[in-house]
């Protein structure tokens, strides 16, 4: 189980990691505070080590979450079948929620803080898909 966390806010990263661990999803979490580094990593990892789960912050300096999604467009076919991408943002802007619907890569936009219940739900979803993919 490979999870990638992209968020420039280290407290938020700390929190998300902690929640994932507690809900049993913390075994292989790779956290990036730099979106550029995250993109470089993903370009290497796909397709052999495609993560099953990505949490992506939207508001980051230099490269926003939207930019990251654009950079991942070439891998869309691979990602859509094997990876859930969640936008994790503290922003309440309605425009973000609307925009997220335009990306097939995005599973859902979650407003921070991430809750245990949500992580459990995500966990269940991953398990279901694993079963389907055989």
């Amino acid at each position: 189980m490979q999870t990638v966390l992209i968020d420039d806010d280290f407290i938020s990263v700390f929190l998300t990691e902690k929640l994932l661990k507690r809900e049993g999803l913390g075994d292989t979490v790779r956290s990036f505070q730099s979106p550029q580094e995250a993109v470089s990593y993903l370009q290497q990892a796909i397709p052999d080590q495609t993560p099953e789960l990505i949490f992506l912050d939207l508001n980051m300096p230099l490269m926003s979450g939207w930019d990251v999604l654009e950079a991942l467009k070439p891998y869309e076919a691979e990602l859509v079948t094997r990876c859930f991408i969640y936008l994790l943002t503290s922003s309440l802007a309605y425009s973000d929620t609307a925009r997220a619907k335009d990306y097939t890569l995005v599973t859902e936009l979650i407003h921070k803080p991430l809750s245990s219940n949500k992580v459990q739900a995500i966990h269940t979803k991953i398990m279901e898909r694993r079963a389907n993919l055989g």
Partner: protein
Amino acid sequence: MSESAQFVDSEERLRSLFENSLDLILFQDREGVIQDVNGSFLDLLHRAKADVTGRHINAFLPNELVPVFHEKLQQAVAGTRVQFDVAVQFKGAEPRVLNISKVPLRVDGAVKGVHMVARDITDLTASHQLIEQQARKLNTIFESITDALFHLDRNWRLTFLNHEVERLLHVRREEILGRNIWEVFPAEVNGTFYKQYHHALATGHAVHFEAYYATGQLWLEVKAFPSEEGLSVYFSDITPRQEAQTSQKKLTEDLYRHNQDLQQFTYLVSHNLRAPLTNALGLAQVLQAESAAPNETLNYLEASLEQLDLVLRDMNAILSVRDQQGVALPEPVQLTDVLNQVLHSLQDSLQQAEATVVLAVPDELRVHGNRAYLYSIFYNLLTNALKYRSPARHLEMIITGTRQPEGDARLTFEDNGLGFDREKAGNDVFRLYKRFHATSSGRGLGLYLIKTHLDAMGGRIEVQSQPDAGTQFFLYLP
């Protein structure tokens, strides 16, 4: 033909000329006694020849003219041919204006009498007077119109200008009339006025334009009408209007900047402020999950942070409504459609409260507005009614709708709930975070949002309420 026959002939000819002349002719002796008079004169006097001849002319003159006629007669008797115009009403005759000649008749070098030949110039005089009167009237009109007005002939010479031209352009008509306008205003050659007037005269089409007259520091609105005679130009000073427009433009720019600031503020609220808050919330939740026993302090910390987050969410909601002004295009909306939608979504809550809602709004009542705003308004009004219902009775709500004579749609939401002291609430009713019930769970946002949404659609809201009797909301929508 004999000599005498010739003479008679000649006398008869003269007689005929005398009798049939359209001019009024009489012959007086040196004293002024009328010796002979022609038909035209008798017609004017309405008398027979016998009544006139042998009498002094004074007998037919109004008293005030006697001296004049006497004087002229004396001059003629003295041998001078005299001519004068006079307005006269001979006794028993109509008033006339006459051009009178008195011609002395000399026999052997001595003046024997005077021919008085009067030409009736009454009509001519009247015409002249009419023309003068018209010219004066026209002048008065041109002078009294508030527009400045001047006329140019086809050689650009100023042929007429009114007082307003003198006032606005600081010129004097006696100095510039008859001169070429481009010599009078050399700075304007090849400028806007120059080009427009040339265009008008060249094409024969009227021009209408606004231009700045730099010399006088004036903004002028100009209309110029070409004709065969040249160009008629009307203009007025629109400097104050231009200045108003400039300040309006500045105001718009200011507003635009303020709006930008507001958007920036929304962003600040929805991200910069909320990011650390969500971390705090998350951390509190983690602590809570990790603590072995229930921790009251931690509970309160979490509750406080959640309250703070609610405030932030509200602010975001409000600022987002403002942001979208002008973006969300108004459309025709059937009110019952939206009302039914809201009632449907609140079905469970209404049933739980055993509330009855009477919807008496005609289906054809439509407004021009934003569907999402209307939904939010109705939703807030209904949840308010539920929230502030009386514990003593079931909630009854009546919603009515009518079209006002002036075209607005009016909706009333009437409930039998707790109500509030309308007078005490005053202007605070629709303000943000103003609450009128200590016990309920309200955040004081509902009414504020309703008003914000209505404002955005050009509508308005009024409220009447009495403690423990109920509340009535009146909504007016364009």
